[in-house]
C-alpha cells in the first residue's frame, strides 16, 4: 500500500485567529470549526468514521479522542491524537490516509482548536463534561463505570457474582505458571473473591485490577524482513477499532460494547470466525469485561458470558484458554502497559516460547484492548494462517 491515490481533502474550514476568544471552550471551538468543515465538504456528520485530534491542554488530560468524538456525537473506527506541536495538522493528514488506505475507515475529521480566554483561570486542571456533570455526584474514577456495567448485565441476563468471580480465580490459576505475575503463587477461590471488600457494588476488590508500575513494548516491522529475524514472526492478520463514548451517560448500551464491531472488523480482515480462534488474550481490568468480551467476540451468545466462564477451563488445558499469563487481574496493571501485556502473551504463545505455560496449539489469537468506560476498543487477530 502507498499513501498516494488513497484519499483527498474535500472539506476545509478555519476560525479566524483572534487575540482572545472569551467565553468559549476548546471543545466548543472544535465543534464549531468541524461543523464548518463538514458543510464545506458537502457531507453529513454521520459520514465521519475517523477522527484525529490534538492534545486538549487544560481541558481533557486523557482520552481526548473519545471526549471529542462523544461531544460531536461521532463513533469513529479510527480515533487518534497527534501530539507533534505545530506538525500535528500535517501529521493527521497522512495518518488519516494510512487508515483510509488500510480500509479502517473512509472519512476522517482532522481538527485542532485552541481557546484563548483571558478570564479563565482554571479552578481545576480540567473542565471536560465528565468533570462538570459526573464528578460532582461522587462519580470519579474508573471503577464506577464498570460497576454499573456489571449491575446492568446482572439485571438483564441474571449474571451472578459467583460467575464473575470465576475470572480472577481462573486468572490466578493461570498465573501459577507465570513467576512474573504480581500474584504468582497466590491462588484464590470464589469465596475469597466474594469475601473481599466491596468496592462499588457488585464489584469486589479481588475482581478489580491492581495498579502497578511497569512497561511493555513491541516492535512491528514489514513482512519482507520479518522472516529473517531471530524469532518466529507473529503476523498481524486483522485489526478493528471503535470508540463510542467517554461519559457513561452517553453510552449506546452497557451490556454490549464497541468490542463487538471492532472484533467483527478484525475477524473480517483476517478472514476468520470466532471458532478459528485458539487463544483469547483479552483485556481483563475487571471481571465483567471478560464476560462481555467473550459475548462480543461471538464465543457465546449475548448474556451467557457468566455461564460460559463458569463452564469453561480457561487454562492452557482448556479448549479456549484466556490469558495464560494470568491477565492483568493476576499480573497487575502497569497503567496503559497492562493492555500491551495481552499482545506480548499472544506473541509468546504463537512463537512457541511460553515455556511452562505453552499451549499445545496456538496458531491464531484474538487480542483486545479496552479503554475508558468500556468505550474505547481495539481488536487484533494475530498468527500464522
Amino acid at each position, binding site marked *: 500500500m502507498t499513501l498516494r491515490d488513497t484519499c483527498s481533502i474535500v472539506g476545509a474550514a478555519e476560525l479566524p485567529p483572534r487575540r482572545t476568544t472569551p*467565553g*468559549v*471552550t476548546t*471543545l*466548543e471551538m472544535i*465543534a*464549531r470549526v*468541524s*461543523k464548518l468543515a*463538514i458543510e464545506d465538504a458537502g457531507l453529513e*456528520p454521520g459520514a465521519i468514521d475517523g477522527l484525529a485530534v490534538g492534545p486538549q491542554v487544560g481541558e481533557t488530560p486523557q482520552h481526548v479522542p473519545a471526549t471529542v468524538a*462523544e*461531544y*460531536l*456525537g461521532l463513533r469513529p473506527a479510527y480515533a487518534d491524537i497527534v501530539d507533534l506541536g505545530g506538525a500535528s495538522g500535517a501529521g493527521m493528514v497522512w495518518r488519516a490516509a494510512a487508515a483510509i488506505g488500510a480500509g479502517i475507515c473512509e472519512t476522517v475529521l482532522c481538527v485542532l482548536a485552541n481557546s484563548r480566554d483571558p478570564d479563565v483561570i482554571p*479552578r*481545576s486542571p480540567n*473542565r471536560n*463534561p465528565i*468533570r*462538570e*456533570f*459526573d*464528578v*460532582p*455526584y*461522587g*462519580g*470519579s*474514577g*474508573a*471503577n*464506577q463505570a464498570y*460497576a*454499573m*456495567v456489571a*449491575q*446492568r448485565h446482572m*439485571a*438483564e441476563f441474571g449474571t451472578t457474582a459467583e460467575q464473575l468471580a470465576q475470572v480472577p480465580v481462573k486468572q490466578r490459576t493461570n498465573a501459577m505458571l507465570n513467576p512474573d505475575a504480581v500474584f504468582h503463587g497466590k491462588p484464590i477461590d470464589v469465596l475469597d473473591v466474594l469475601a473481599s*471488600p*466491596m*468496592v*462499588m*457494588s*457488585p*464489584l469486589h476488590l479481588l475482581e478489580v485490577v491492581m495498579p502497578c508500575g511497569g512497561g511493555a513494548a513491541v516492535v512491528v516491522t514489514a513482512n519482507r524482513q520479518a522472516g529473517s529475524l531471530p524469532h518466529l514472526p507473529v503476523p498481524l492478520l486483522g485489526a478493528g477499532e471503535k470508540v463510542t463514548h467517554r*461519559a*457513561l*451517560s*452517553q453510552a449506546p448500551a*452497557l451490556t454490549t460494547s464497541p468490542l463487538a464491531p471492532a472484533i467483527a472488523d478484525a475477524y473480517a480482515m483476517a478472514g476468520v470466525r470466532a471458532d478459528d480462534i485458539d487463544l483469547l488474550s483479552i483485556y481483563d481490568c475487571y471481571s465483567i469485561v471478560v464476560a462481555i468480551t467473550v459475548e462480543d467476540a461471538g464465543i457465546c451468545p449475548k448474556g451467557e458470558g457468566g455461564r460460559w466462564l463458569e463452564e469453561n477451563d480457561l487454562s492452557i488445558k482448556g479448549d479456549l484458554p484466556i490469558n495464560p499469563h494470568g491477565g492483568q487481574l493476576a499480573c497487575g496493571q502497569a497503567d496503559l502497559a497492562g493492555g500491551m501485556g495481552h499482545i506480548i502473551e499472544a506473541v509468546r504463545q504463537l512463537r512457541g516460547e511460553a515455556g511452562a505455560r505453552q499451549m499445545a496449539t496456538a496458531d491464531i489469537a484474538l487480542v483486545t484492548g479496552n479503554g475508558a468506560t468500556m468505550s474505547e476498543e481495539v481488536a487484533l487477530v494475530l498468527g500464522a494462517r
Partner: protein
Amino acid sequence: MTTGTERLPRPGFVSVQTTVPYWEAAAEGTLLLQRCKPAGHLQHYPRSICATCWSEDLAWQPASGRGAVWAFTVVHMSGHAAWRDEVPYTLALVELEEGPRLMTNVVGVDPESVHVGMAVELAAEHDTSGPQPLLQFSPVRPAESSPVP
C-alpha cells in the same frame, strides 16, 4: 503526617458559558434538557452543538423530572477522597422519560434497595453541601390518592 480525619473539600464549581443556564436552573431544582430546533433532538449533557445533526440552534426545555434507573452502583470505596466519608452512597444513570440519560445519585432510600428499572423522579431536596448544584433522584412518591378498585 495526616490524621486521616480532615475532610477534603469537594472539587470546585465548574461551568462554561454555554452551560450557565443549566446550572442556574439546577440551583432552582429544575433539570433542563437541550432541544435542537431544526430536528427536535433532545440531549444531555448540554453543549454548544446538537450531537445528532450538528445544528447550533439549540433551546432549553425543562424535563419532567421522571425516569427510571438504567444502571447504578452503591459506592463503598469512593473514587475521590472528598467522598470518602459519604459511603455508602448510590451513583446512578437515570434514563429520563424523554430519552436522555444522566449521572446522578439516588437518595432518600436504602442504597441496597435500588435496582435497575426503579421508577424515580427529581428528589424533593438535593445535597447542597458542595459547590455544584446537584439534581438528585428518589423513588417515585406514591400518588396522593387513588381510587379503590
